[in-house]
């Protein structure tokens, strides 16, 4: 039960880019297509789950004064492992994500979850937390990438989805399009949660 609860909170309550508003650098930079977004999300999820598990297992051994250093070393190791594996087996994706893979190390989500959750919870809960947050992050990037890809290129996952005479709105796949679509999505999500909170208050 606790596992499900820790897992599901990452999908809405603490959805990283929209509710915690963390990890915006990759969110803005790599979501030029749904595929890139999902790839970045999955790489981050892998690092997050592994680092959460290790931090949680070592939480009693790591002295609190050097904990940040230790967390960073753990996260950095997993990032390099991910980078090497991706280079070896998914070279195309590696070429697209490029510099943003090493930057997962300084992604606030990783350190944030290690510090705020894994360092004070057991390994099973920490893995659930990592999976939930990671999946939430992946879905957010996928949706954001999907919206930008459909409007900016008329395709979704590389397949044409809009009518042939559709003129691609190239602005959407450029940097400003990232800010605009992220802002609109943040607004929508805030609107939904405000509505939900209002309904809850009325029910009481």
């Amino acid at each position, binding site marked *: 039960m606790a596992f499900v609860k820790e897992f599901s909170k990452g999908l809405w309550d603490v959805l990283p880019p929209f509710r915690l508003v963390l990890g915006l650098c990759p969110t803005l930079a790599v979501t030029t297509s749904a595929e890139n977004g999902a790839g970045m999300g999955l790489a981050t999820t892998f690092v997050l789950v592994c680092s959460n598990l290790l931090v949680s297992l*070592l939480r009693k*051994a*790591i*002295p609190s*004064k*050097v904990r940040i*250093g*230790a967390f960073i*070393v*753990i996260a*950095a*190791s997993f990032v*390099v*492992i991910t980078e*090497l*594996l991706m*280079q*070896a*087996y998914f*070279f*195309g994706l590696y*070429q697209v994500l490029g510099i943003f893979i090493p930057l997962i190390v300084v992604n606030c989500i990783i350190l944030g979850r290690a510090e705020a959750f894994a360092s004070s919870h057991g390994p099973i809960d920490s893995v659930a937390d990592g999976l939930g947050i990671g999946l939430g992050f992946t879905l957010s990037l996928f949706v954001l990438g999907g919206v930008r890809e459909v409007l900016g290129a008329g395709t979704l996952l590389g397949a044409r989805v809009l009518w042939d005479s559709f003129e691609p709105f190239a602005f959407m796949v450029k940097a400003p399009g990232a800010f605009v679509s992220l802002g609109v999505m943040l607004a929508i999500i805030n609107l939904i949660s405000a509505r939900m909170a209002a309904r809850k208050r009325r029910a009481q």
Partner: protein
Amino acid sequence: MREIINMAVVLTLICAISGFSLAMVHSVTKEPIEYAKLKNVKEPAVKAVLSDYDNDPIKDRASFQIGTDKYGRPVNLVVFPARKNGKTFAVAFESSAKGYKGEVGVMMGLDVEKKAITGISVVTHSETPGLGAKITESAFTDPFKGKVLENDINKDQINTLSGATISTNAVLAAVNNGRQTFEKYKDKMVQ
């Protein structure tokens, strides 16, 4: 004091384990990474200059030392063989010469028996866009096809680019350098 020692020991241990596991992963992924890089970066060029083979030239590549650079580091030549029924009938390799701005690298395919060019493709260059950069276009590279390299080829045998003499000469020089490399290392290249 105890606390300081504890901190140092724990952090050292974590870093050591991390370093060790990274070294492990590196040694496992070294080969696949090299292959993936060649496959994605070189394969388009190799495919452009070789045809009608039934092996994987990237996988069957051979590499050997052909000299040292000015810092004394070894320079390796990578040869991509094209085979049919197990017999190498053509090889592709990179050759370079100095262009207008920096090195011009040419991937060239050579028929082993006839010493004829099966195709060339300019893989690296920094020539002027619109002028020298035309060396990458097929209108320029296609006439090289079928030329027999008994001797150095010269300008009369190809379509020269007007306004880009230096770039044209660089590609010619690269091809002729390639001819010399082939003459010199033929036995090692054809296996």
